[in-house]
């Protein structure tokens, strides 16, 4: 049996860009998440300090969830733009050649 994709689609010229973008965003989030885990394990009392009305633990926890969504939306917007730009340009070039 073939073991390629279940659905056919054209070549994605933006995949390299998206992969690099994804890695940078992944690395950024990793740093924020790692800092959260390290503070929790090394100095859990710091998590009890107030940040505005709430303490750092709750604020940081909610922030990790919100930041994940914000990064996801930005990633999608940039990826979609890159797909439109690069894949459309590729199609135009192909049409000129033929």
């Amino acid at each position, binding site marked *: 049996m073939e*073991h390629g994709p279940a659905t056919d689609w054209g070549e994605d010229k933006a995949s390299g860009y998206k992969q690099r973008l994804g890695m940078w965003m*992944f690395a950024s989030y990793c740093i924020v998440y790692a800092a959260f885990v390290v503070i929790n*394990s090394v100095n859990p009392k710091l998590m009890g300090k107030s940040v505005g009305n709430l303490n750092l633990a709750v604020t940081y926890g909610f922030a990790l*969830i919100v930041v994940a969504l914000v990064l996801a939306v930005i990633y999608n917007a940039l990826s979609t733009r890159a797909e439109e730009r690069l894949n459309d340009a590729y199609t135009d070039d192909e049409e000129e050649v033929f």
Partner: protein
Amino acid sequence: MVYGTSSWAIGIFAFFVAFVLWMAFYFAKRTKTSKGFYAAGGTIHWAVNGIAFAGDYLSAASFLGICGMIAMFGYDGFLYSIGYLAGWIVALFVVAEPMKRMGKFTFTDALDSKFNSKGIQFSAALSTLVISVCYLIPQMVGAGSLITPLLGIPHYLGVVLVGTIVTLIVATAGMTSTTYVQFLKGGLLIIFSTTLTIALLSRGFSTAPDQGGKVPYHEFTSIGYSVGTDGAINLGDASYSLQGNWKDSPYYLKDDNPAKPKPKFVKLTKDGLDTVWLIDEDAGQLRETLFTTKTRDGATLYNGAPKSEGRFFQVGALSEIVMDGQKVDRTGPLDPVSFLTTIQGSTVVRFPSEKVVDGENQVTVYYPKATAGADLLRPGIKFKIGSSIEDNLNFISLMLALFCGTAALPHILIRYYTVPSPACARKSTIVAIAAIGFFYVLTLFMGLGAMTSGVLDLTDSNMSAPLLAKSFGVFLFAIISAIAFATVLGTVSGLIVAASGAVAHDLMDRFFNMKMTDSGKVIAGKFSAIAIGIVAMFLGIAYQKMNVSYLVGWAFAVAASANLPAIMMLLFWKKTTSRGIAASIIVGMVSALGIILLSPEMYKELYGLDPKLAPFPFDNPAIVSVPLSFLTLVVVSLATQAAHARKVIIRAERRPLTPPVVGIPLEPVLDHTAFESMTREELVQLVLQLKSELAALKTSPGEPVN
């Protein structure tokens, strides 16, 4: 605790089941191909797939388990929510699009897309099966545990009922019906969790939460006492009597560690019924507790009497409410921020537990402990972090497994094949992050609400969310209970699809190379689903008496250790070889499971041994097994570069270039990563071969070369 059966719950659940079964049989008529069975034809809309992701992922462990853990331990339970959600970042930024681009039906397809390796096919299918079974057992046991109190049927019948429904859903229309079951369940879960949270905020806090006037809050009593010169205890209430010397009693717990003194209890008798009291030496008071007794004949008594007598009441309240600097008895409606700030400034009565061996009886005592809200909203009650290096590493290891495990769970990964394109895979992941993230924010409110609303059943923290719903009326309770059942259906159906894909597609079709027609592959998938469904039912009944919730942790640990290193290195390290991947999967799986089996928790829970004897100091293996798996992949890949290159050349020689192929880049024909590791001689040989094939094409009278 006796919940009583709810005809509303039965009715709503029956309606849901009837609807999803109708849907499954409806879609079954359209499911004729293997692509339709395993990947829903690749036609699911990304938004539907995103909510279905939530339905797939938010298992009973997420919904019932996390709410229960927050209700018992506060913020420490919420750490699971954060870790589970953060794992989706790995799924989005690293896994989603490549997984869709490279794979067809299963996770194994994607890993094997460059190699066509028997080693990868076998090891990845095995890890899929191990993860699926580890995940399935607690779901099936949980299904029976949920149904027993709520529908009033025996545990085994509950397991068989859920197992039969799920098997029917999967064996009829495969991934299509599974997707819509998960979509419905995910949508309902988020809508009604939001409803429950709004109702909770509207009610606010009270120091005597009475469940909307339906159940008066139990006021805990105290008895004054003094100690005579002879060391005997003198009780302030003569209706209670004490037998023997209170300090020689097993209830007067001995301190293993003087730095952490244990609570001391005393057993008193009144009207022939035993009661257990916490000794509050500072206040000179004995405080009422709750306790369960497991007798030698296997019966369980609740506060000294059978469950049906209803002596084991619901608990959980704020003992002191401070709102805007003022002490109040009741807050009235609150907004989300003031809900949290009020808890932070108030005092909550928690009920930790201690075990007592009283002759042949095993007694668990739940005693009241006033805890500052500020301490509940920061880590440290469940996880003893900051106290020792082992505890810190254990915590880091858990958070690592949650982060790395999500994006490598096979039943999550197969959802990427149901959408039409990599862009849709990406978009559906973003919908999943939004839906799951929102739900996890709600878990903090629902958990803290259950902790402070007088609804907690201390013997079953998993019932916290349904019991919180019950305090708002039987309809919301029925809906939340029905969703809890649907939660099991959604997750178990996803797991059975993943496991049947591993058996029928990865093993039968690919690994054993059994020659089957496309319709034969569908039949193989359906029979695999039925077989796995039967095994799941059997395991659900067999493990009924065991606490198996830790198996979800096993699934995450194996996924993080066996699957994620293989996925990441395949994508980002060009020298990765098929043998490296297969070895890393096996090493990751074996090391994760091995470490778990040698962990303190298993020594205590599974073997009944002293946890200090455990050879491995942590319960969570990820901090060792994940790096070990990465290291194995690197070492084995580097050691097998030459063999890998030879294999690629052989494959190239067997696949002569044809005119339509010459016009497109070489990448799809040859694995370009192989060139980097080829020797000069091998490269020369390959170039000569290509030259001769090109020359032959130019001289042939066939189609012109593009």
